[in-house]
């Protein structure tokens, strides 16, 4: 297992997990979110499958909410 931080909370994942795998586990549709991995924005959602997550990584998953 590896431990990483997802949206500010520590989370354990199987070794060799991909970003797409993490989103799948969380039940998140990748088309509806923007992901920042270790402070780098991943602009191409098609590449989520090939982004491998490592221990100590930081992932931020954001979307649009109501605001003024």
């Amino acid at each position, binding site marked *: 297992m590896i431990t990483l931080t*997802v*949206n*500010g*909370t520590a989370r354990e994942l199987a070794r060799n997990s991909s970003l797409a795998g993490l989103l799948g586990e*969380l*039940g*998140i549709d990748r088309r*509806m*979110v*923007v992901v*920042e991995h270790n402070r780098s*924005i*991943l*602009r191409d959602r098609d590449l989520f499958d090939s982004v491998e997550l490592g221990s100590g990584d930081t992932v*931020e*998953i*954001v*979307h*649009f*909410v*109501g*605001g*003024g």
Partner: protein
Amino acid sequence: MGTALETSLDVSPLVIGGREFRSRLLVGTGKYASNADMVQAIEASGAEVVTVAVRRVDLNRASDEGILHHLDPDQFFLLANTAGCYTADDAVRYARLARAAGFNEWVKLEVIGDSETLLPDTAGLLEATKTLVAEGFKVMAYTNDDLVTALRLEDAGAVSVMPLASPIGSGLGMLNPYAIRTIKQRLQVPVIVDAGVGTASDACVVMEQGVDGILMNTGIAAASDPVRMAVAMRLAVESGRLAWLAGRMPRREIAVASSPISGMLAS
């Protein structure tokens, strides 16, 4: 072929950053009691531009629905904000995240300097504007009603400068009409008054200063009946715009009779 009424109405579009909008009322999507209320009110407002915020998906809720489950991005022009950001770096980060959502490269830039008044940090705002303009963003900059800051934001490449009428969410209406008028007179880019409009008369008076439009959220969302208030705001923005175009009569300190003085009966 318009009727006299149609030709007297304002049909000139609002043009910001090369893009045309028919409505001069821009609205926020926050603080509504429900998503259904929000959608109804926004449709009633006639607004084309709607602001949204960028926030973490709540991973503890089974289905944390983003706002795009309720608002059709083909129907509205999404304007992401950087609300809640207190540094230029944070605001730039949020703007980049918003652009990565893939809708457009526009941002309503906020860099807040004080948590009590939510007044802008104008130094941070200018810095973030320069950075984002260099990256190809179209920046609409939320600022205070200071002319010099407004001029600097325009110089920095903002496509619109958005001075406040009064603090965000205060509903106090326009506190300094002179400042708003002066900013409008001196800037080339569209001036959209953002924040502080509490009711329809506030919106009307703001538009009567000659500004190009108004962005509001709480004024509609926090009304007892947001849909009715959205209609009232739409009419007030149109009314104020027409009154501005029509040119008001001069103010006089004395009465001037409207009826003829001649032709009165002998007493």
